[in-house]
């Protein structure tokens, strides 16, 4: 199966939830230095549930599409469930076969999001 399925290209060219929140409860930035990818995740949380989320940054089609899809997926989810998400969840979400090097691109947004959740807890939210 082709990695660049229509849905991936669509999310890459028309990213959902791209931009910034007015008052994010947490904002985290992380990069994959060797690739030159950089993803920023922002979340707003009420009662342990993600009320809203935005992402920004730059990267390859896989990392940006994964970020876009992830923001859609986690809206309305409990942050506890976000912390439980793992690599296979992302691969399922992407729906394309990924080599080990591209898997790194795909899971970067989740890593950034989970770091945002951790920083949220640290700040007592």
């Amino acid at each position, binding site marked *: 199966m082709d990695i*660049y399925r229509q849905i991936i*290209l669509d999310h890459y060219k028309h990213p959902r939830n791209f931009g910034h929140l007015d008052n994010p409860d947490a904002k985290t930035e992380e990069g994959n230095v060797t*690739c*030159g990818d950089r993803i920023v995740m922002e979340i707003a949380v009420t009662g342990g549930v993600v009320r809203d989320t935005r992402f920004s940054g730059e*990267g*390859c*089609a*896989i990392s940006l599409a994964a970020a876009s899809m992830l923001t859609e997926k986690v809206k309305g989810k409990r942050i506890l469930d976000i912390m439980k998400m793992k690599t296979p969840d992302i691969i399922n979400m992407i729906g394309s076969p990924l080599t080990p090097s*591209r898997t790194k691109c795909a899971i970067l947004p989740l890593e950034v999001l989970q770091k945002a959740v951790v920083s949220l807890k640290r700040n007592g939210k």
Partner: protein
Amino acid sequence: MQRKINGKPIIYLDSTATSLKPQPVIDKENEYYKRYTANIFRGIYTTSEEATREYEGVRVKVARFIRAPKTEEIIFTRNTSESINLVAYSLMPTFTKGDNVVVSIMEHHSNFVPWQQLGEEKGVKLKIWQVSPTGELNLNDLDKLITRTTKVLAVTAVSNVLGTIVPIREIVRKVKTLNPNCLVLVDAAQAVPHMRVDVTGWGADFVAFSSHKMLGPTGVGVLWGRYELLEAMKPFQYGGEMIREVRIEKTIFKDPPHKFEAGTPHIAGVIGFGAAIDYLTKLGMQRVKKHEEEIVGYAMKELEKIKGLTIYGPRKRAGVIAFTMKSAHAHDVAQILNEDNICVRSGNHCAMPLHVSMGIAATARASFYIYTTREDIDALVQGLEKVNTTFR
């Protein structure tokens, strides 16, 4: 490498990372394992003598290949990185706070990080020699960079990203006029495989390169150094093979090169490397260079026709082209090319400071060698058109 993946042949355009290996090299490396496996310098028995003779014979070949005045100036290491680390660590005791080291911004991490780390350890300043927008070094900059306290200038002979061919001979001459005590180390990993290198003509103090980028096995590197410098330097590693005499209270080391070759080396690899040098010698480095010039000229001309493609570096260059595409990130370019088994690199190619200075996160890179054909370039061009179609 003549096999097919998904029914398609492999088009290898990543020779800057490592080269393919010809059959005589593979056979020669195997010959050691099949016919005279033995440790070197140890046995009186025939196979050990054979292995030693073959291993030391390669040292002679390397010395001749790069025109080193003395065979004893050739040290076998694991790779270029280890060769540079050897120099940095062995020289470390001679550095004092307030000294400085100059490196160019386009150095591979292997000729950047050892000096940066040495600086942190010893309070030595790392000064950067910037490149022009076309990726060239301006020799006039040396007037400011090289001072009385500059201990080392570490510079590449050919950029592994931009393909810039650096005028080493002129640089060394200028540096030695400004400060005769400043040592010059040349990273020749992208030079020795591709052009005739004459270390004496260059006038440098140290030259480092790797076997695996010049048709030889992986795991073998070379450091050439001026004999009197090597003689004065401390060993980099301690262990077997490098010892003349060990007493409880002290040890006397062998002379160079052996004092820098602690432990059993990659005997088979070094022996295979000898066959690689024979192969290149037979071809003639003049022909190797000419072929690459032809291929890179053709590739530049064809790549420039592709919409949204930007090439980095000077017009006159070695066989490497780093580029970006407007339509897609370097990773996606490499991924789409891989669908047709076209092997290119993507990322910062171990030259992150250069990429940061150019303000780009990642480039895709195609690089060429003696076996690269015009058909390979045509396949690359077709693949890049496919990138544009996919991401249109």
